[in-house]
């Protein structure tokens, strides 16, 4: 029988629904009688939601123009824009 700490390394793939079926069954069997791992999984699920909800960062509206200007300024362009 696997130890708790070994099974806990499967949490991320379990929550991401990519854990292979036989490992998922083994983990779910374990969770049915291990309150420690069940609590940890609940905490990991909450963390997972928080991390997934982190917003993307948006650069300034003229970002693309600034990049094109830098290419001209730095003489990076090998072609005549």
């Amino acid at each position, binding site marked *: 029988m696997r130890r708790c700490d070994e099974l806990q390394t499967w949490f991320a793939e379990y929550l991401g629904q990519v854990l292979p079926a036989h490992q998922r069954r083994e983990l779910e069997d374990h969770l049915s009688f291990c309150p420690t791992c069940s609590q940890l999984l609940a905490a990991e699920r909450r963390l997972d939601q928080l991390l997934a909800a982190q917003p993307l960062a948006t*650069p300034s509206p003229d970002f693309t123009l600034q990049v094109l200007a830098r290419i001209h300024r730095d003489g990076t362009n090998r072609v005549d824009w």
Partner: protein
Amino acid sequence: MSAELELVQRCARGDQLAFAELVEGHKVMVFTIAWRLLRDRGEAEDLAQEVFLRVFRGLPSFRGEAKLSTWIYQIAYRACLEELQKPHRRQQYVSLDENARELPFADPGPGGVDLSQTLDHYLSKLPPHYRMALTLYYLQDRKYQEIAAVMELPVGTVKTYLHRAKAWLREHVVEERCAR
């Protein structure tokens, strides 16, 4: 030919609109990577621009063996690591490496009950490679292969980084807060 490779070839031929299209398509992700690793908006913006300069210079060598996004995020990650290596940016991070996991971490956190603020605080304490793995995991639809390709690491190492980072964050952000 894929639409991606066609776009790259148009850029390489000097099509300014094509390059603007390439930047538009990837700027949010590149800026998000820079922002999450550098944690300063102005510096992230400057570095993200530098990334696209490097992309522009490197376009002739892009052969389409990797996805264009993988190649661009790889350039962004390398640029961030270079920036973080600079002496004035040296910062203390929590060590999650195997041999140092038992070291105490004396940081009371920001207090309060806002979990997302608490998460942000503790994320800033993670070493950059752990933060990068987490960033890509949630923004790249949890695809380990993609993360491994961007970070130039084996998939197993990526999984280890994610497991350690999440276990540490879970302990400091969720369990401690919920126990208060």
